[in-house]
């Protein structure tokens, strides 16, 4: 086929993306370095020297890190269990994990407002069995955000890991056991290393997802700001577009650093090299 035909197939999509994604993103990043026509890094200096901004960044990173670790700890065993099931049961459990993933984040965060609220389900049950005397203040704290985010991203890591674990040859486990490894050792030395690529992809998805999530922190975080709600606040409520652009750029940079680092780690840890 002639080259020209190939380009004609790709061109409309590329033009569209360039016009409506590449240029807007590139211009947003560029705009942070220019103020009244001259080059400046003032926006970044402002951000990096203000304790309030740094606290928001710190909270965001903390929340994302805890969410990622919790998702790994909770998701890994569950994924292992699911990957070992027969096709029927596996299909059902995967469908049950995919369903929340396809459900609106507004719905999912709202469900946690019902549970974690001051008069919510959690408090009223704990009060009624006498475990606590005063309602716990969980909603509108970083803890609430973490719970919401774990709920949001746990299915993602589970289905990613199941996808990877399914492809691990079960004979490898048998071989390890026949060579004298205990079930646990075999799991640790065969399943875990072979799952690492999937684990890293899953962790990237969860970490970057938590870092940039908007709905869940907006609903469950209350006045607690994370970087994405801070971006929204600067852009819409405060109308400080220069600052919002700086935050947007910082978010892009962090995202790409995380993806880059994790990919590097993946190639390093991948037993296949």
């Amino acid at each position: 086929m002639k080259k020209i035909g190939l380009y004609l197939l790709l061109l409309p999509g590329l033009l569209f993306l360039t016009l409506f994604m590449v240029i807007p993103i590139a211009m947003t990043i560029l705009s942070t370095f220019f103020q009244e026509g001259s080059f400046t890094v003032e926006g970044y200096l402002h951000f990096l020297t203000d304790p309030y901004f740094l606290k928001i960044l710190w909270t965001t990173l903390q929340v994302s890190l805890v969410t990622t670790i919790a998702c790994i700890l909770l998701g890994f065993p569950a994924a292992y269990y699911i990957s070992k099931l027969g096709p029927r049961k596996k299909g059902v459990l995967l469908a049950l994990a995919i369903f929340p993933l396809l459900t609106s984040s507004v719905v999912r965060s709202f469900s946690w407002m019902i549970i974690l609220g001051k008069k919510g389900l959690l408090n009223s049950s704990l009060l009624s069995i006498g475990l606590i005397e005063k309602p716990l203040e969980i909603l509108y704290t970083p803890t609430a955000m973490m719970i919401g985010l774990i709920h949001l991203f746990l299915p993602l890591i589970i289905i990613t890991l199941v996808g990877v674990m399914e492809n691990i040859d079960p004979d490898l486990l048998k071989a390890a056991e026949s060579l004298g490894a205990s079930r646990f050792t075999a799991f640790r030395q065969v399943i875990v290393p072979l799952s690492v690529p999937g684990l890293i992809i899953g962790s990237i998805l969860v970490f970057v997802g938590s870092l940039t999530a908007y709905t869940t922190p907006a609903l469950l975080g209350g006045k607690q700001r994370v970087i994405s709600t801070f971006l929204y606040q600067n852009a819409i409520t405060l109308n400080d577009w220069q600052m919002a652009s700086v935050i947007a750029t910082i978010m892009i940079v962090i995202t790409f650093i995380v993806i880059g680092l994790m990919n590097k780690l993946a190639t390093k840890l991948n037993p296949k090299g």
Partner: protein
Amino acid sequence: MREKNRGLALFTFFIFLFLLGPLLIISVTSFEPGTVLKFPPQGFSLRWYENIFEVEMFLKTFQTSMIVSLAGNLLALLLGIPAAYALSRFQFKGKSFLNAVFISPVLIPGIVMGFAMLKYVIITYQLPIYAGLLVGHTVLMLPFIIRVIASSLSNFDFAIEEASLSLGAGRLETFWKVVLPNIRSGIIAAVLIAFLESFNNVDISVFMTGPGVSTLPIQMLTYVENNFDPTIAALSVVLMIITVILMFIIERLMGLSYFTKR
């Protein structure tokens, strides 16, 4: 060994309780007859389901969401099918780079994309709000459309296409009569997945909505900020039912395995 498996089964059960419990709770509370969300509900009533239809903004924004998702989907198909076809059919220089470009909208944080689009698509390009929303959702859907269709093209035997061409059918005719029908289920699945992505989107829409134009999730967010009655719970149930139906169709068309691949 059995013991350990049982432990693992119990653990997995609790994980699924954690994942689905909140959705079950929100469903049950939607039948609360009172004006405050309670669990368990103090009776059974469908008044909040009726209320969905009485809050005019819900109907209006549902309509907007539908139009934007469907029209954006159509646009994404028009742009995405040729690109997916070119990317899976031909070997050429820069292919992996172009692949990355077409997938890139999922790598940019949604909230950043929304803000950049507000700045350039709405303000600089002066697109009307409705058109801006449509464009934003098309960019959002494009990677999903391309990925799913490319994956069903990778299962398509291009020898059949060659056969059709050698029998004298033109390229376009072959594509229309041979390739397209063969990947039909992939295309429908792509449309449904992209639809759900767009219909549920908050990050981009939150910047692209303006006076008189809003999408359902944004309207729900606004409503939750001001009211805490069970209307949102009822609306959530309706949305979940739609999700289940679409999931069922996706499963029928291509299996749910799409979701386990990264």
